[in-house]
């Protein structure tokens, strides 16, 4: 197996380079300075990308590369092994590709920060974990990456740890993610119970062979729900989305890479990866669809009322992830995956653009203190414009194509609640993005600092991502419009579509074009209304109390705090003070006190006076005598 061992080296290199880098920048970053770290971190990632690309272009898929045994599980076992198939390769291309760009950008953004080396160490560690997540061929291996990215997210959110708020935000992200991980763990236990294995190809093969007893189906259903909980945690869906807005406390490149482009899409990846399992339980898929649609809708309503530019984007991310879950739930994984990829481009672009603005304004994030930046930051402005148009769904940009594919599937599903939610969300998306765009770049400058354009390391990345956001639609351009649906063909061996549009081609073209026109009109309407609403923006808005619930995110955080956190704390205090302190120690010290009290009394018998002892002997003798007398027969 000459070729196998050669690919094994390359795969190992792709994954280990970021890990080694992480250790290097952490330990040597201070000593060798920024230049060393910048060049090192970026080139390590670029190499890793090259390795993945090499496999992407040369290997015959699926390719399984085994390293060594990790967990022995009785009759079966789990190994460290990689599975290269279309699903994992597509995502790892995005992760390393966009990752390299964001690393490059970050060398400019983080310039002068005291924790420069530490930052790139965490960022590299993140890429390592993300690759473990995508490439692992077993669920525990995937889980290693899954928790690893959670750890990096925690470390990077609380990167500026001297501010207590950042530290709390990091902690919150980790804990909420762990709630999801609880579901993931449970799913693995259930799956192992049914399949006796945790290797993904093995599981999926058994699923496809079919033949399950009612008992088995109980466990697989539980497993599906566990996976959904895990996905909801990692991808910030209702009810576990609360950590993502707070995660914006991290440096902006982190928000772009982790909290927009890659990590948060892991839930979508997981659902696509395990799709055959979900196909056993269509009702669970329905739950996913509704979870996604409702999340998309609610997050969009909150995004409209945010003034912090990163918060708008954060809620927008939650909302877009909702779209992806909607597609997964409807049985259109290709659409979900397509949107995942285009979203990685345009949302990374938007975040990095926002970062460029924040950088240019000396860490101002409030859009009310921006405005008129289009002349001061022209490159940022034009790139952002492309990003905004893409996410708003203006043809023929990538966001339009992928979102249209999702809407097309929603339409084909004939569930009108979902249709309504999806289209309203599309409208709101265009509206709040237009609002962001106009408040930031148009009107008069309302800020306090002198704005300046960012260095080339940052702007060049913006330009590349803008190009990608504009053109990525080609990846899966529909057949009906003369495209080749490359991505769909590529993924067709690993995932399957549930919705078939079995209509005659002419009619299909007509309806798809109608839908495309409607969806672009919806997007344009949102943008236009935003334009008229905000073109003369003065800096004040939404003062009416009617908007309070939206501005305060429906008080979900407060609700969780009041219901879960407070009670858990009280319960902990109760266990400590009452159960441990009062009851258990009470019994213990009580019995000790009883023993010592008893001995205090008994001790008084031992006086050392001969006469008393003699008296006791007499009394004893008399008792014996009495006993003998009463006992006579």
């Amino acid at each position, binding site marked *: 197996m000459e070729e196998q061992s050669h690919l094994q080296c390359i795969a190992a290199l792709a994954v280990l380079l970021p890990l080694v880098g992480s250790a290097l920048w*952490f330990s040597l970053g201070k000593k060798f300075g920024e230049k060393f770290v910048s060049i090192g971190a970026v080139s390590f990632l670029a190499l890793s990308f090259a390795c993945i690309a090499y496999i992407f272009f040369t290997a015959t898929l699926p390719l399984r590369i085994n390293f*060594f*045994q*990790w*967990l*022995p*599980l*009785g009759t079966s076992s789990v190994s*460290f092994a990689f599975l290269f198939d279309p699903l994992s390769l597509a995502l790892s291309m995005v992760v390393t590709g966009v990752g390299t760009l964001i690393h490059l950008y970050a060398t400019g953004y983080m310039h002068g920060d005291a924790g420069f080396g530490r930052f790139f160490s965490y960022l590299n560690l993140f890429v390592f974990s993300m690759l473990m997540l995508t490439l692992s061929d077993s669920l*525990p291996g995937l*889980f*290693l990456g*899954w*928790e*690893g990215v959670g*750890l990096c997210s*925690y470390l990077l959110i*609380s990167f500026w*740890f*001297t*501010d*207590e708020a*950042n*530290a*709390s935000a990091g*902690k919150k992200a*980790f*804990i909420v993610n*762990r*709630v999801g*991980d*609880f579901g993931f*763990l*449970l799913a*693995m*236990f*259930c799956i*192992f*119970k049914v399949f006796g294995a945790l290797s993904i190809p093995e599981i999926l093969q058994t699923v496809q062979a079919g033949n399950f007893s009612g008992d088995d189906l109980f466990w697989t259903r539980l497993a599906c729900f566990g996976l959904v909980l895990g996905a909801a945690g990692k991808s910030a869906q209702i009810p576990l989305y609360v950590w993502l807005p707070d995660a914006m406390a991290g440096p902006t490149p982190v928000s772009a890479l982790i909290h927009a482009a890659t990590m948060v899409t892991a839930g979508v990846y997981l659902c696509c990866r395990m799709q055959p399992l979900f196909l056993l339980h269509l009702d669970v898929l329905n739950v996913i669809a509704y979870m996604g649609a409702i999340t998309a809708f609610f997050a969009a309503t909150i995004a409209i009322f945010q003034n912090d530019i990163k918060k708008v984007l954060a809620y927008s991310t939650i909302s877009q992830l909702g779209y992806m879950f909607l597609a997964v739930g409807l049985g259109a994984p290709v659409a979900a995956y397509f949107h995942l990829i285009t979203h990685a481009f345009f949302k990374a672009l938007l975040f990095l653009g926002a970062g460029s603005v924040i950088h240019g304004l000396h860490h101002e994030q409030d859009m009310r203190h921006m405005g008129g930046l289009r002349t001061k930051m022209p490159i940022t402005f034009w790139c952002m414009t492309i990003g905004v148009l893409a996410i708003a769904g203006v043809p023929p940009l990538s966001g339009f194509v992928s979102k249209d594919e999702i809407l097309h599937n929603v339409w084909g599903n004939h569930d009108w609640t979902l249709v309504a939610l999806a289209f309203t969300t599309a409208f709101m998306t265009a509206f709040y993005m237009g609002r962001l765009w106009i408040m930031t770049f148009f009107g008069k400058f309302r800020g306090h600092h002198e704005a300046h354009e960012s260095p080339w390391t940052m702007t060049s990345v913006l330009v590349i991502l803008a190009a990608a956001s504009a053109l990525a639609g080609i990846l899966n351009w529909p057949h009906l419009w003369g495209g080749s649906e490359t991505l769909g063909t590529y993924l067709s061996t690993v995932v399957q579509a549930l919705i078939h549009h079995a209509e005659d081609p002419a009619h299909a073209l007509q309806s798809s074009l109608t839908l495309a026109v409607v969806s672009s009109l919806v997007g344009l309407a949102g943008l236009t209304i935003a334009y008229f609403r905000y073109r003369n923006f003065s800096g004040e808005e939404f003062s009416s109390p009617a908007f309070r619930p939206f501005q305060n995110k429906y008080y979900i955080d407060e609700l969780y705090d009041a219901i879960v956190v407070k009670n*858990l*704390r009280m*319960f*902990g*205090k109760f*266990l*400590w003070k009452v*159960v*441990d302190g009062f009851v*258990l*120690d009470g019994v*213990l010290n009580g019995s*000790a006190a009883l023993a010592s009290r008893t001995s205090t009394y008994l001790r008084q018998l031992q006086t050392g006076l001969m006469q008393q002892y003699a008296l006791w002997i007499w009394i004893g003798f008399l008792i014996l005598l009495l006993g003998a007398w009463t006992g006579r027969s």
Partner: protein
Amino acid sequence: MLNSNYLLVLFAFPFLATLIVSMVRGRGQAVTWVSIALALGYFIVVLLGLTVTELRYEATWFLPLGLKYGLYLDSYAYYLILLSSFLTLLALFYSRGVVEKKITAYHALFHALQATVVACLLCDDLVFFYVFWEAMLIPMYFIIGVWGGQRRLYATMKFFLYTFAGSLFMLLGLIAVYIYYYKATGVWTASFQTLMEYFQTNPMPVTVQSWIFLTFVLSFAIKVPLFPFHTWLPDAHVEAPTAGSVILAGILLKMGTYGLMRFAVPLFPEAAQAFAGPLCFLSVVGIILGALVAWQQTDIKKLIAYSSVSHLGFVTLGIFMMTETGWNGAYLQMINHGISTGALFLLVGFLYDQRHTRDISAYGGLAKILPMFTLILVVMTLSSVALPGTNGFVGEFLILLGSFQSNTASWIWVVLASVGVILGVIYMLHMIQKLCYGKPSKPEVETMTDLTWKEWVLYSPLVALVFFMGIYPIWFLGPIQEKTAGIFATIAPFLAK
């Protein structure tokens, strides 16, 4: 190849070390170095036995009552001896320059403690086992009582009396086994191996099993400690000197879980099956209570002590759910806990030696002042919360995954125990945030110094083990698996299908 004389060396070395250390005259430094050298020597001696799978040594002692001076070594005993010699070495090395009172006695007591622990793990004779089981208490009693904190007398009394009282029940149980065997066969024997073999083919009636099983479990449960017998532990840990805490958490608690796996369950499988439900319930309560109470603590040592209650709840759950994979995980988790909690106590000791307070609010912002300390603390925290890639994950995952497949008790216990996975992050990250993040609140914090070469020597093997055992656990699990499979081959007929 090592023969059975190796067992004699393994057994006698720490006793001799105790003698030698207590006879060294001269100033403090000399004793310290002699003692550390002996501990290192013993660690190397133990390492020599790495390839051993099973060894036996037997000599007659008092034949009329069937008492033999029997030693028996297998992988269950071996890795705990390895852990003990390793942690004792680290604990003594740590104490260099920290402990200034009665240095000779201090070092001698740690060697004595090691001697009794090893003897207890090695001996094949129930009578010897009991003698050393009780003897273990004495050195620890003095270590806490003489070198401890302010409430040391209360704590050490509680520790001693509580565990001692529990052991008395086991003595009754041991005598019962001993007499039962004599009545059944007409031969006196106290050899555990002989008893095991006999009871495999001629099991006791379930009611007899149950009573004796419960006496054993009571004694072991107090040692572990299993809820509701755990309240001595936080007090003992808070008052114990750092090195004492390391050994207490790292080794002494494991004697309880070891006892369950080595004696209680294999001798009385039917009883274990019958009481599995309630015992799993207590384990789960321990997991959740330990975690929630740890979250409430302001004393760092108390926080870690309660986290031990939670972690050992996982171990006992793995044992009482009675699956092979669960047992492998439980055994590994014993070692893991020794490493991560031992390290955490050393880290707290590092803080305490500089600031003389264990109050969490006296710190804050340490990440800025002590970046390397923070790094090690975070690594150990990750191991403690069972992040994949660290040793903690392998243990916890095997326990939960194995137990979930159990027929002995309900899978619901595993689901509830998994909630502990969430709670674990809450209290550990709470601790990290309070200690390390934020701005340095007190001026005293700003003058603290980061790790020196001494700490690096202490922590680097621990950190290496965390990852090595997390990524290549098969190195440890290989021999353990064989042993577990052997035990399950004998008890499987008595378990629920």
